[in-house]
């Protein structure tokens, strides 16, 4: 059974179409990054998956209909939205009590263990914690829940680089165990490149590209082309071309690496660069 399965998922807010017939399948044990510009429909898709909004089309998460079974579904799904959703008037100890009191799969000892590695005081109120600490607290709560699916919606927005790095490190080291599934959206794309198993680009409510990271690495290649080789390189039909410090970087999809190696240095492109290339091409269609 797929962890998330959507067919013809549609959602409109008034005349704005946020999701335009999305077909989606996320298998168990994947870490999927959903990448897209603002207003592309990322959050709408996540909110539909979490049962926060009604939608048209078919959607099953862990075999359940999220809209009609949200509270049941949340036994197996955890969710971190951006950093500002923890109730600010609650104390840290109360947050532990509460989650322990309502969540059958919460392991309080585990959460205490994660918190012990931070500087978070058990008697502090959430509003007294820094942004980074609130995220650490939320992550400690979520990682102590034995969930099958974890959804992260811009989880590290507004955090400094140390907290961001730590966030994904703990997630990989202390949480992810290949039987769980993680779906994440973020603008800090390159930070999660090594974390993901799959990447999905969305724009205008549609999935414009999806591939596994292994396929990504074998399929796409960037060449720093020496100026004299530029015409030759262009003949291989790059999907995108950009200038960095006076040198041309050409991005190829399924090109012959031996041919390209003669023209300059090869490397795997960053997700952000591919994103720009794909979006540039798609932007032209609109």
């Amino acid at each position, binding site marked *: 059974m797929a962890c998330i399965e959507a067919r013809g998922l549609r959602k409109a807010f008034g005349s704005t179409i946020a999701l335009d017939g999305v077909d989606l399948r996320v298998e168990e044990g994947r870490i999927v990054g959903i990448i897209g510009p603002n207003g592309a429909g990322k959050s709408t898709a996540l909110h539909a998956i*979490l049962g926060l*909004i009604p939608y048209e089309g078919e959607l099953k998460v862990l075999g359940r209909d999220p809209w009609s079974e949200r509270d049941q579904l*949340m036994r197996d799904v955890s969710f971190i939205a951006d950093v500002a959703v923890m*109730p600010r008037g609650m104390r840290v100890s109360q947050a532990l009590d509460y989650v322990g009191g*309502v969540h059958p799969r919460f392991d309080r000892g585990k959460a205490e263990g994660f918190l012990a590695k931070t500087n978070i005081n058990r008697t502090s109120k959430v509003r007294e914690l820094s942004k980074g600490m609130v995220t650490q607290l939320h992550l400690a709560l979520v990682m102590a829940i034995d969930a099958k699916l974890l959804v992260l919606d811009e989880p590290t927005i507004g955090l400094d680089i140390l907290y961001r790095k730590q966030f994904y490190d703990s997630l990989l080291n202390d949480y992810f165990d290949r*039987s769980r599934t993680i779906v994440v959206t973020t603008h800090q794309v390159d930070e999660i490149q090594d974390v993901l198993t799959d990447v999905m680009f969305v724009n205008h409510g549609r999935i414009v590209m999806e591939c596994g990271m292994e396929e990504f690495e074998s399929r796409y290649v960037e060449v720093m082309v020496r100026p004299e080789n530029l015409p030759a390189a262009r003949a291989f039909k790059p999907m995108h071309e950009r200038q960095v410090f006076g040198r041309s970087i050409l991005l190829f999809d399924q090109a012959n690496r031996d041919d390209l190696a003669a023209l300059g240095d090869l490397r795997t492109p960053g997700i952000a660069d591919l994103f720009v290339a794909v979006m540039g091409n798609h932007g032209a269609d609109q």
Partner: protein
Amino acid sequence: MTADPLVAREVEPSAQTRPMYWSIRRELWENRSVYAAPVVTACIMLFGFFISAITLPHRMRAAMADPGKLHGVVAMPYDTTAGLILVTAFLVGVFYCLDALHGERRDRSILFWKSLPVSDRTTVLAKIAIPLVILPLFSYAVILVTQLIILTANTIVLLGNSSQLAALYQNLKFVQLSIALLYAVIAIALWHAPLYCWLLLVSGWAKRAVFLWAVMPFLAIGVFTKIAFGSASFFTFLGDRLAGWFNKAFIAPQKGAPQLDPLAAMTPGTFLSTPSLWLGLVFAALCLAATIRMRRYREPM
């Protein structure tokens, strides 16, 4: 014993969860006014009545000849305590309801609450339980304790005068009073239920100006009917919704008539056969059902 972690994960969680209990607990954590306000009111009253207890023997002596007046002098601190704490609880309940489903959308914490396996029904019922169950019972307890402290203070002040002490206990049937008070607290909760449920509904619906949305429609209808038909009946209806419980649940004390025993003044039959009580409760239930349904659709603002 297998130590396979995959098997362990499939075992049904043994941890006992109590979503309703913890939902109410967290409402109290987040809204300390629910228990702080009645206590603060009680403390202020206690302070005042401690001072006035000093002059109690003097005032009782002046009223000894007139049983009606004497009853007034003796019972006043107890009635006032109960009345003011109940009014405090009412105000706390009103403002609690106005913010209950608006605040969680304003500060985005609704996303946190909805990320946990707690249904919208549990959440909404826990919220309405605050003004309908928690506040009345807690206020009742605070009133009882306050009245007991006042009674102790009065007793100590009157210890030197056995006839005044006897008059105190004759005019103050504490046990009957406590029972009548519990009855009153329940009657008020039932009577005000539609009001709280309406406020909760508006709190979940309005994007801003919750208080205005909650109050203005009624004022508008009242003013309109007054201007168009010269009828003040809608305002009478509103007044009845606020204070009408008393005349239905109790026999109102008559001027000059002998003071009724608190228990004899209770008229639960009349109260329970008042159609507007039941209409109000039906309205309350409809509001709650709508609120629960609406919370499914709610997102941060």
